[in-house]
């Protein structure tokens, strides 16, 4: 992989609702991990960090994701510098 400046910008990970409660923080900053190119791969990576993350991502079918404030799919490709948010299905209004 080429090592450009932009590749070094960290990811911002945001958690909402019960995902935030399980992880224990609302926001994490981390380098795009080696070998992680999609949302699905990021979830696998995060789930392996510790028990709190594992608990947050356990019910994966009720986890939704947005990348840079747009709804995203597990297959969505990540770039360094992205803001990645994880949350349950919305229950507004």
């Amino acid at each position, binding site marked *: 992989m080429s090592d450009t400046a932009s590749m070094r910008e960290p990811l911002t990970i945001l958690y909402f609702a019960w995902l935030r409660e399980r992880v224990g923080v609302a926001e994490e900053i981390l380098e795009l991990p080696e070998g992680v190119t999609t949302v*699905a791969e990021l979830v696998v990576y995060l789930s392996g960090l510790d028990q709190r993350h594992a608990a947050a991502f356990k019910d994966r079918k009720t986890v939704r994701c947005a990348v840079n*404030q747009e709804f995203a*799919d597990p297959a969505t490709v990540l770039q360094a510098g992205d803001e990645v*948010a994880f949350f349950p*299905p919305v*229950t*507004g*209004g």
Partner: protein
Amino acid sequence: MAKISVQTGNFDIAAEISRLTAGRTDIGGVGCFVGIVRDDKPRDAPARAIQALTLEHYPAMTLRAVGRIVEEAERRWGLLGCTVIHRVGRMLPGENIVLVLTAASHRQAALDSTAFLIDWLKTKAPFWKREEFPDGEGAWVEAREADDTAASRW
């Protein structure tokens, strides 16, 4: 033109309607929906009676997403005015949560765009509700959306 607000405080429906219509003679109808914190469970399940509701949201995404959907409604129904106000934070049963107002030349555009916007806010906007029960416990409201539909994507 549209007014979009995500706020902790209540809203004044009459003031919002008059902000849309005052001094104009081209508006034939105003559609309106007011969402209210509901607690209809006290009799069936007193232990789950809702004492309060707390709404959390994703601010950076909310304003962008609501702005885009309001623009779509304005274009699609040729709206002459539109207001969307969504409250966040802690609210008690009976309090207002959300207001949608649309002004149009004709009633059908006002009615249809109001329904479109509130449906979208309820099912697509990044808001999450947490209910508080009499024993002090709480629970995040689960979406009605069948989990299966999204399950296959992971």
